[in-house]
């Protein structure tokens, strides 16, 4: 089997660590239950394994651009999209009033893990469509919602995000695309956008572009950017499709990975102007995009972990199968499967332990997202919002940075065979690479973490979380998990020292704080991941005696948690030293001397 959804792991992280039953009891989610989610994930797994995973490799050959500005999706993708739409999977996260199921974000993200593992390039089409749905649903007029959302929620139409321009990447204040009022309420949009994921393709009848552009009288900078809907085909009053709008894909980028996902250069208004419709109020576009940011960044964190999972499965399969060299210390010269070799074990454990920790932390953040949106007690909703805000840059940054390491370990286990494209593991490394870049690079996540999420609230959420970590430490010690308790305690101390440093320096010497921001993000990821693994070990130990308990699974959980504590948690000491004492050497070398 090329990919098998890790059903037991997903269920454990969902039900035990992210506390799905509590999320299902939130107002508006009454129809959701553990049994229903089980059924959804089981069918989702069949779809991921049976439809999406088998076309992942052929997707790597890429989509095809033609001089008539059309793009043909990679082989098999159009048919798979049709099946995806027919099965109603786009509706998993789409709002109920427009035909979606309106399920918790937690459930949708668990399903998204499987799409991303099976076929990252494909998964971006629904991911972008859902982002566009969310933006339109939150900010557009009822009239625009009625036109676009029903058919986006089914997946008949897909959506895109047109933010980036050649001179406006991480800094969107530089956006230059123009929007000129026509007089009938619509606008003429012109300009060029780059890096537009699924910007053009032949899988759906229409594509709904969300475009950032400036009105003629807009103030300069971020406060002068508005958001527009620009459909590929105009939509008639009766809902039928009309003329082709003046927007075209002028080329596709040649990328390192995710070749199955066409990354378009979009040109608006080459023949006078593309017709667009203002979403919400003028000049508030960037703020609207940021409302979706949490969900999108959490989604990319899931992507990183999901590709790691796929690489792990492939590495385990190879390590069991590949016979090479006698066992270390054995007098028997007969070769053994390389999974018997200690260093291969170490690599597999390093992959596995981080994936489990990352899944748990991402699902925990998703549950907080649901609580923030739906909790009936305002103070609880607010506390969860702060928690989400703090965790998102960590989940996004840490999961994706580690995805590069984990997929690389997957290749290492394959030896020379891994470096050969036919083996298939190189694709996971190439596909994973983008996740630490798009939707805000790790550096951007880390700046967000130290500034808005830590210093500006005097480290309140960070300290609250570290208190939670400490209460888990006490339970671990009581349960006899000595190394876990000791190492998690030490990590919490390191984390606290760094929170103090960030809070203390951010206002007065921001460059010093920023120099250690990515190490700080990693340190928090490692510590909070260790907390999740500690919680997992405690739950696994408590469940061991239950009737019908899955002894193998629960034992593996505890061993994996111990490995995490003994091999990953100690890294916090080194990171803390670099953060607190190493900032000066980051900045000392004159730029001219590089």
């Amino acid at each position: 089997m090329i990919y098998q959804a890790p059903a037991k792991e997903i269920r454990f992280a969902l039900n035990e660590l992210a506390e799905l039953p509590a999320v299902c009891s939130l107002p508006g989610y009454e129809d959701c239950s553990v049994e229903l989610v089980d059924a959804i994930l089981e069918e989702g797994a069949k779809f991921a394994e049976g439809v999406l995973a088998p076309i992942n490799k052929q997707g790597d050959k890429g989509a095809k651009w033609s001089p008539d500005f059309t793009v043909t999706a990679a082989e098999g993708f159009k048919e798979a999209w049709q099946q995806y739409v027919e099965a109603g999977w786009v509706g998993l996260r789409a709002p109920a009033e427009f035909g979606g199921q309106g399920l918790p974000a937690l459930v949708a993200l668990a399903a998204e893990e499987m799409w991303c593992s099976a076929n990252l390039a494909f998964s971006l089409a629904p991911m972008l469509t859902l982002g566009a749905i969310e933006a339109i649903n939150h900010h557009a007029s009822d009239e625009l919602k009625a036109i676009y959302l029903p058919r986006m929620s089914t997946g008949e139409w897909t959506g895109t995000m047109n933010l980036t321009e050649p001179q406006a990447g991480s800094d969107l204040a530089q956006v230059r695309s123009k929007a000129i009022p026509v007089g009938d309420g619509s606008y003429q949009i012109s300009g060029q956008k780059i890096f537009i994921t699924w910007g053009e393709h032949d899988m759906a009848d229409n594509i709904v572009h969300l475009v950032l552009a400036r009105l003629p009288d807009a103030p300069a900078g971020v406060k002068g950017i508005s958001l527009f809907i620009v459909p590929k085909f105009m939509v008639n009053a009766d809902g039928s499709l009309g003329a082709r709008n003046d927007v075209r894909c002028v080329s596709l980028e040649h990328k390192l990975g995710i070749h199955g996902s066409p990354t378009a250069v979009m040109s608006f208004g080459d023949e006078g102007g593309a017709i667009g419709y203002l979403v919400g109020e003028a000049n508030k576009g960037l703020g609207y995009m940021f409302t979706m940011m949490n969900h999108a960044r959490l989604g990319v964190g899931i992507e990183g972990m999901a590709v790691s999972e796929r690489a792990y499965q492939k590495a385990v399969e190879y390590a069991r199968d590949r016979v090479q060299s006698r066992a270390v210390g054995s007098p028997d010269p007969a070769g053994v499967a390389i999974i018997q070799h200690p260093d291969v074990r170490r690599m597999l454990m390093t992959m596995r332990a981080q994936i489990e920790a990352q899944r748990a932390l991402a699902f925990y953040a998703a549950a907080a997202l649901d609580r923030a949106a739906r909790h009936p007690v305002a103070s609880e909703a607010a506390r969860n919002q702060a928690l989400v805000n703090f965790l998102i840059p960590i989940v996004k940054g840490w999961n994706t940075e580690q995805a590069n390491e984990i997929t690389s370990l997957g290749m290492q286990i394959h030896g020379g065979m891994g470096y050969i494209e036919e083996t298939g593991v190189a694709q996971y490394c190439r596909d994973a690479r983008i996740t630490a870049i798009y939707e805000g690079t790790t550096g951007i996540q880390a700046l967000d973490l130290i500034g808005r999420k830590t210093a500006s609230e005097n480290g309140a959420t960070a300290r609250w979380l570290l208190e939670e970590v400490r209460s888990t430490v006490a339970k671990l010690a009581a349960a006899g998990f000595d190394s876990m308790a000791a190492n998690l305690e030490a990590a919490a101390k390191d984390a606290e020292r760094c929170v103090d440093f960030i809070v203390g320096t951010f206002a007065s010497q921001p460059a010093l704080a920023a120099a250690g921001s990515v190490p700080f993000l990693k340190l928090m990821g490692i510590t909070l991941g260790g907390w999740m693994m500690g919680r997992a070990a405690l739950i696994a130990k408590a469940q061991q005696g239950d009737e019908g308990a899955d002894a193998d699974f629960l034992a593996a959980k505890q061993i994996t948690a111990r490995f995490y504590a003994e091999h990953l948690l100690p890294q916090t000491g080194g990171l803390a030293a670099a953060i607190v004492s190493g900032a000066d050497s980051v900045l000392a070398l004159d730029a001219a001397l590089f």
Partner: protein
Amino acid sequence: MKALVAVKRVVDYNVKVRVKADGTDVDVANVKMSMNPFDEIAVEEAVRLKEAGKVSEIVVVSMGVKQCEETLRTALAMGADRAILVETDAELQPLAVAKLLKAVADKEQPQLLIVGKQAIDDDANQTGQMAAALLGWGQGTFASKVDVAAETIDVTREVDGGLETIKLRLPAVVTTDLRLNEPRYVKLPNIMAAKKKPLDKTTPADLGVDVAPRLKTLKVAEPAKRSAGIKVANAAELVAKLKNDAKVL
């Protein structure tokens, strides 16, 4: 026309099963369970017949432990209208299942009973045939094509020599083979809707059926491991080995 479809909860076909240490049975604790693939084909065929207007109601039935409910919910999500669980912790052998099916059929009065030709756990391939005998209905086993008319059904069967088509008077029993259809991927809205479809529970006692096993399992063992092969120098040595060691010539 009402169709009754029987589904069995079995170890998922992807799972590599292990024999219990005491050799009494296969270890099914904490392994993934799914609907028997042949039964999935049976449900799919009933749904297709309903979509074609040939069948008006699909009732799915399963027998066994409480968790069979999940299997029934899957069948409901695929398109069955309602479900019946005959709940029991007892070991069920084909004859007991056939008797239970007869009891349920007597109550439900379907025109068509569709079951998988066999279950992938015990591979008995007996239930459909026994049920047909107990009900006194015709049987079309190993179906790779069915054609339902008002009072009859044509069943194309996969037999050793090729394909054989028989005509049965309704009500009848059909057992499904692999090539009858390819089951669909379940749609998300149907999973949600399946939760609200009726699922009735009954027991063998309620149905007046004695399910006591008639067969006793003496021992369960893993297939013998293949031993390593040997290289021979030439054809003469090969023939000698086949003659003297393997004793096949």
